[in-house]
């Protein structure tokens, strides 16, 4: 069979005419439709579990937006990390911080229509404070006990003063489950048909496939704009880009910055790339050669954070000099370490190192776990090389990082991204730097003593924050860690949407609406 030019042109014409017809015929309803009453989100992670209070899912930051869509938290958080009333309308300690009190909002109902009572709140707090439940921050919840209900007020005793106890009520694992239902169906039954009191009800869930939510018409926080919300679980970033570009989804996130820049200017799409509560850092371990303060200072002075942000992250990042982001409670703009390679060379020379006789060490990093993680470390290693620090890069998986960190066996330097949507320094600098914590790496008595005092020793919050700022300066002066930058989150959505970016990295359907 041979084609002549005429036959080829006829065939090509027919094919060209067929494609749009096929397109109309085959495209799914969700792909073809403009935003109606359904908001479709191409989301990067599927919830492995529907119990947001226990297990690995409860501390996965990526899942919090989904949990917040279905369950209520005790206390809510504003886009800028400020705390606002949620199920609790008021909360606090007595003057000497020996008692806690909480006021429970009236008129909240669970998704099955039953009222959410103060006794339900107590059941939830007692449950997560119980060691056998498996809550991963059980110590926080156990810091208050003997909870009692008086009308709409809950009171309790402080077992051990934890200054950020109430901040945790808006943070990881702080979700309310319906006791009557949970007791009735058990843990396995709850996994199959979860109910909460949040803005949306779970209608259908297919793990790694999709989650379809229906509006909770009686939500205490106001009726959400969209009747139906669909989370499509699309793990691959390029597939998420394809989802939004093809119109199959209305909103997506966690895409490469290059793609964000391309898509945000595309007709019909809009985008926002906003700072979030994730801080990129390099852990220093108290092993040779980092026991030498000159080496540590040289490692810090030689890194040009601004260049990393501009050249690698296309400007989407904030250079940081402590582990506190600008939105955090203890952020101190006055702590600033200049990029000074000349001084770095001089310091290394004092310790007998030079470009010809470099100090040698290993730096560990993940590759592709967080945006540009490996590339960032390559850049840092390049900057170090220029002053006389020869670092060998060891790539590992994040699971290996956690294992080594828990055993305090990380290399001299290790890249990590620390998230802290609570904004309290105890949960960022505190647990990252306080030696006895299984999550810390630098472990020296001088710092541990200082941190123990600011983490638990001060009951006045103003003084506590002042103490924290001193501690942050001490850490920066002694170069016990190398903070790099605050990450940005790129979100692309259809231009007809109003999207609210949250520093806590939430993508909340009930805070998203159609433009008027």
């Amino acid at each position, binding site marked *: 069979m041979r084609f002549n030019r005429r036959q080829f042109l006829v065939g090509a014409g027919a094919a060209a005419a067929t494609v749009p017809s096929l397109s109309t015929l085959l495209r799914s309803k969700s792909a073809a439709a403009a935003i109606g009453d359904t908001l479709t989100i191409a989301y990067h992670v599927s919830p492995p579990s529907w119990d947001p209070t226990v297990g690995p899912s409860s501390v996965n930051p990526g899942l919090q937006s989904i949990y917040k869509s279905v369950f209520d938290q005790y206390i809510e958080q504003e886009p800028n990390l400020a705390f606002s009333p949620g199920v609790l309308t008021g909360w606090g300690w007595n003057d000497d911080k020996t008692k806690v009190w909480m006021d429970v909002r009236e008129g909240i109902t669970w998704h099955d229509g039953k009222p959410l009572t103060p006794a339900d709140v107590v059941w939830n707090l007692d449950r997560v404070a119980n060691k056998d439940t498996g809550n991963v*921050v059980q110590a926080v919840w156990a810091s208050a006990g003997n909870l009692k209900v008086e009308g709409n007020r809950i009171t309790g005793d402080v077992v051990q003063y934890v200054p950020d106890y109430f901040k945790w009520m808006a943070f990881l694992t702080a979700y309310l489950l319906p006791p009557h239902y949970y007791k009735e169906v058990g843990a396995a039954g709850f996994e199959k048909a979860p109910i909460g009191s949040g803005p949306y009800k779970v209608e259908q869930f297919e793990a790694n496939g999709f989650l379809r939510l229906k509006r909770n018409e009686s939500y205490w926080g106001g009726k959400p704009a969209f009747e139906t919300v669909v989370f499509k679980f699309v793990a691959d970033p390029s597939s998420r880009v394809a989802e939004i570009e093809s119109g199959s989804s209305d909103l997506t996130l966690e895409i490469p910055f290059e793609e964000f820049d391309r898509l945000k200017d595309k007709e019909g799409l809009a985008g926002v790339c906003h700072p979030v509560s994730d801080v990129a850092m390099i852990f220093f371990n108290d092993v040779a050669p980092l026991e030498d303060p000159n080496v540590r200072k040289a490692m810090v002075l030689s890194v040009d954070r601004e260049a990393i942000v501009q050249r690698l992250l296309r400007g989407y990042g904030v250079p940081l000099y402590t582990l506190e982001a600008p939105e955090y409670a203890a952020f101190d703009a006055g702590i600033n370490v200049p990029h000074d390679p000349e001084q770095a060379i001089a310091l290394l020379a004092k310790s007998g190192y030079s470009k010809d006789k470099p100090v040698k060490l290993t730096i560990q990093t993940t590759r592709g776990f967080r945006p540009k993680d490996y590339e960032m470390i390559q850049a840092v290693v390049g900057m170090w090389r220029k002053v006389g620090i020869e670092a060998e890069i060891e790539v*590992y998986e994040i699971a290996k990082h956690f294992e080594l960190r828990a055993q305090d066996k990380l290399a001299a330097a290790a890249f990590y991204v620390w998230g802290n949507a609570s904004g309290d320094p105890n949960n960022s600098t505190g647990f990252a730097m306080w030696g006895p914590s299984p999550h810390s790496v630098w472990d020296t008595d001088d710092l541990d003593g200082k941190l123990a005092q600011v983490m638990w020793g001060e009951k006045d919050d103003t003084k506590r924050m002042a103490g924290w700022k001193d501690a942050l300066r001490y850490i920066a002066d002694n170069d016990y860690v190398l903070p790099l930058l605050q990450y940005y989150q790129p979100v692309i959505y259809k231009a007809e949407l109003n999207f609210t970016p949250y520093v806590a990295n939430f993508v909340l359907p009930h805070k998203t609406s159609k433009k008027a």
Partner: protein
Amino acid sequence: MIGRQVALRLLLAFPTLFGVALIVFILLRVVPGDPIAMMAGVTATPEEIERLRGLYGLDRPLLEQFWAYLGQLVQGDFGVSITRRLPVTELIFERLPATIELSLFAMALAVGLGIALAVAATYWRGRAAERMTDGFSAFGLAVPDFLWGLIFILILGVLIPVLPISGRVDPSLSFSSATGLYLIESFFRGQFDVFVSTLSRIVLPALSLALPLAAIIARVLKSSLAEVMQQDYILLARVKGFGRFRIVMRDALRNALVPTVALTAVQFTFLVGGTVLVERIFSFPGLGNMAIEAVVNRDLPLIQGVVITFALIFIALNMLIDLTYGLLNPRLRHG
């Protein structure tokens, strides 16, 4: 005879499965990554980490863990998933139908396409069709399935958006499946909206998996057909005046298919293995997608369960291949 073969194969399956269970168990304990260290909260003390370890049975001696695991296995119990908090067996049965449906659909596409191309190349030997088949075989073999997936997403999902690129069924449709085989079940239950939605979503991942296999089938079958077309009985058929199409389809194809069937069956096991990446790319909620999730989260019971399930599938497929080959090839049957 066949009964004996099946019995022998089944007996051999037990040591194979034991070996797989042992290797997976040891590997998962040797490779880096502690699930408890990953889930420990910021306030966790070493005592709390130990308590969590105890909660998931990871604090017991390795040998004790392994015997307990084996004891569960023989009862068909894979344990409880650390991340999903549900029995692993239940999770596997929930996802397996999706992978089976995808694999079978891809297999059907590969066989159909491969045979059609080989027959076309034989029928139009020395002409454009043969050159196109050769070109397709070379290209199809050179491009791996996951890359086909990305190409299809770009071309048929974004540039000319004719097909959906993620999921298994339109999320706006409600469908409660008894078997998990959406395509077949929705068709027989007359839920054609679900059927069309499922069909439109399975095409691209299935085609990605099918193309490399179709290329192999086309190449092998074409060679086989070329050999058979030289046989005396084909010459006799020509002398009798039968048409070329009838000769290729009725006389040559049947004999040429024997080596192709055996090869296709072997390749099918690779196709099933390929679902892991392709399911990920197309967000297809099958066993492969769950396997990646389990590995990322270091969900040891789930990883073990998925690997044993894949091993069972491969053992079953190999048994089926041997039996089919024996049935198709009389020399093996009577040898």
